[in-house]
C-alpha cells in the first residue's frame, strides 16, 4: 500500500544531484587551473619555439648550421604566425578555445605533424598499461589486505607487511632498472625494451596481443610490485579497525558464515576509503608510469615526453601534460560517480 502514500515533491535539489554538481565544478575548476598553468609557464620565459630550435641547432652544430638564416626575421615571422604578438587576453581566450577542441598545434620537433596525431599514436598504450596495472594491483592489494588482516599478529603478517612497506618506498623506475637487468639480461625471460616485437604489426590478432602482453610484463611489474604494497597496507589497517567494531562481534554472534561477514560488513565498509585512496594516488602513479615508459622505450606518453624534451618541442610537452591531467581528472570524476552509487550516505 506504500504507493498510495504520495510524498510532496521537494523543491530542493536531491543530495545526490548536489554531490554530482559539486564534483563537476571541482573537475572544471581544476582542469581550468591546469590549463592556465600550461599557458603561463612558457610565457614566463617568453619562449619562442622556432628560436629555441634555431639556438639549439647553433649550439649543437656550430654557426654553420644556421648560416644564412636571419634569426630575427624568422622569430618575428613565427611570432606573428603563432599569434604571440597579440595581447595576453586575446591569446588566453584563443588558447582556451583551442584546448577545448583538443587542438594542440603543430609539433616543431616532428614538423609538420600535428601534435594531436602524435598524442593519439602514443596515448592508447599508455592508458592500457596504466589501467591494467592499476586494476590488478588495486584488486590484489585489497584481497591481500583482507587476508593478512585476519592473520594479524602472526609471523606471515609481520614479514609480508614489512616487505610491502619497504617495496612501497622504491621509486617505480629504480625497480624497473633492476627488473630489466635481472629478468631481461641475466635470466633473459622478458624483453628489455619495446612494446611489441620487431615484425609484429598492430591489429586485433593473437600474435600482436601476445607480443604486447609479453613486452608489457616488465613495465607492468615495476608499477605493480611497488603500488601493491601501498594498497595492501591501507586495506589491512582499515580492516583491522573494522574487526574491532561492535557490529562485527554482533555478526559473529548471529552465526553468519565467514564469507558472508566479509562480503556484507568488511568489504562494504573498507572499500570506500580504498577507492578514495585510489583516486588520490592516480596522479602520482601516472607520473611514475611516464618515467617507467621512458626507461623501457615503451610506446607511451613517457617516450613521447622524453623525445619532446630532447628535441625542445614545447607544444608536445604541454599537450602531454594536458592529456595526463585530463585523464587523471576524468578518472577521478568517474570514481566520484561510482562513489555516489555505492555509498548510501551520499544519497541522503
Amino acid at each position, binding site marked *: 500500500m506504500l504507493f498510495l502514500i504520495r510524498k510532496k515533491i521537494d523543491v530542493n535539489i536531491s543530495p545526490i544531484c548536489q554531490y554530482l554538481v559539486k564534483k563537476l565544478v571541482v573537475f572544471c*575548476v581544476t582542469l581550468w587551473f591546469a590549463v592556465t598553468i600550461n599557458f603561463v609557464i612558457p610565457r614566463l620565459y617568453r619562449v619562442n619555439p622556432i628560436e629555441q630550435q634555431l639556438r639549439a641547432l647553433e649550439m649543437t652544430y656550430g654557426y654553420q648550421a644556421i648560416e644564412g638564416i636571419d634569426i630575427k626575421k624568422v622569430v618575428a615571422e613565427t611570432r606573428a604566425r603563432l599569434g604571440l604578438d597579440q595581447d595576453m587576453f586575446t591569446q588566453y581566450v584563443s588558447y582556451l578555445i583551442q584546448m577545448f577542441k583538443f587542438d594542440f598545434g603543430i609539433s616543431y620537433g616532428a614538423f609538420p605533424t600535428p601534435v594531436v596525431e602524435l598524442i593519439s599514436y602514443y596515448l592508447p598504450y599508455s592508458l592500457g598499461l596504466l589501467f591494467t596495472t592499476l586494476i590488478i594491483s588495486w584488486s590484489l592489494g585489497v584481497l591481500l589486505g583482507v587476508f593478512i588482516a585476519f592473520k594479524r599478529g602472526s609471523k606471515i603478517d609481520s614479514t609480508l607487511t614489512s616487505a610491502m612497506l619497504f617495496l612501497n618506498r622504491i621509486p617505480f623506475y629504480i625497480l624497473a632498472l633492476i627488473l630489466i637487468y635481472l629478468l631481461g639480461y641475466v635470466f633473459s625471460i622478458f624483453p628489455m625494451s619495446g612494446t611489441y616485437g620487431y615484425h609484429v604489426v598492430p591489429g586485433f590478432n593473437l600474435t600482436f596481443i601476445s607480443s604486447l602482453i609479453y613486452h608489457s610484463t616488465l613495465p607492468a611489474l615495476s608499477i605493480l610490485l611497488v603500488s601493491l604494497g601501498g594498497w595492501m597496507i591501507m586495506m589491512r589497517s582499515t580492516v583491522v579497525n573494522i574487526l574491532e567494531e561492535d557490529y562485527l562481534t554482533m555478526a559473529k554472534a548471529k552465526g553468519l558464515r565467514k564469507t558472508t561477514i566479509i562480503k556484507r560488513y568488511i568489504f562494504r565498509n573498507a572499500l570506500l576509503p580504498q577507492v578514495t585512496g585510489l583516486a588520490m594516488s592516480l596522479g602520482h602513479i601516472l607520473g611514475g608510469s611516464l618515467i617507467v615508459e621512458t*626507461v623501457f622505450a615503451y610506446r607511451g606518453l613517457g617516450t613521447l615526453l622524453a623525445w619532446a624534451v630532447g628535441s625542445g618541442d614545447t607544444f608536445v610537452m604541454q599537450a602531454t*601534460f594536458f592529456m595526463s591531467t585530463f585523464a587523471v581528472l576524468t578518472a577521478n570524476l568517474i570514481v566520484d560517480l561510482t562513489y555516489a552509487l555505492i555509498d548510501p550516505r551520499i544519497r541522503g
Partner: protein
Amino acid sequence: MNLRLAVGFLLVISIVFLGVFAPWIALYPTDMGLFPRDQKPSLSHLLGTDSIGRDIFSMLVHGITATLMVGAMAGSLSTMVGVVTGFVAAYKGGLVAELLRRLIDIFLVIPVLPLLIVLSGTLARQNVTYFTLALIIAIFGWPGAARNIQSLVLSLKKREFVDLAKLSNERDPEILFKEIMPNMLSYIGATFGMQVGAAMVTETALSLMGLGPSNANTMGIMLYWTRQFAAITRGMWWWFLPPALVLIIFFIGLQLLNMGLDEVFNPRLKRVTGE
C-alpha cells in the same frame, strides 16, 4: 632505542657521511674521461669505469653529495612553505584560507611530474642549476607538506589548550609558536624527512629524462648516462646498480627512521596497528 630507529638511522647517516666527505673519499676526478672505458670493478677502480672513462666510485660519491644537496634544499623549502600554509589553511577562516585549501586540493590531484617536466623543459638548459632545480621541485612539492600539517593543525585546533590560549587573548602567531608548534615538532620532522625523500625521487626522475643541470653530477644524471649508453643491455651492472642501490638504501633507511621515531613519539600507535 628500538631496532628500527637504530637501523634506519645507521643507513641514512652512512649515506650522508659518504656524501659529506665525498671530496676526501673520492679517489679520482670525475669531470673528464681519463681511464680505460667499461672496466669491471677492480682493485684500482672499486666500481669500475663507465663508457666515457670516468671512475664510477668517485662519480657515485659526488653524486650522493649532489642529490642530497638538491633533496635537502627542496625539502627544507617545501617544508617551510608547507608549515606556514598548512597552518593558515587549517586554522584561520576567511577567503585567503579557503583559497589556500582549494589550491592545496588542486595541486594534490594534478599529476605533478609532467608539470615539472614542462617547467624545466621550457627553461633554457644553461639556466638550470642545483638551486633552480630545488626551487622548481619545492614549488610543486609544498602542497604535500601543507596537507600533512593541515590535518594535524585541524586536530590540534580542537584541543582545550588552544581555547585557553584564545581566552588569554593570545594573537594568532603567538598561538602558532607557543601552543601548537611544540606539539607538532615530531610531525614536522617526519614531514621534512618525507619531503627530502620525495624531492630526491623527483630530482632523479627529472635527471633520468635529461632535465638535470648540464654539467652536474647527481645520481639521476649517472642513471641518465647509463640510458644513453645502453648500459643495462650491455650488462654493465657496476654502472647502474650502485646509484640505484644507494637510492633504495636511503629510502628504506628514511622509512625505518620515520617508523622508529613514530614509535618513540607516539607509542599509542603501537596498539592500533597491532604490532
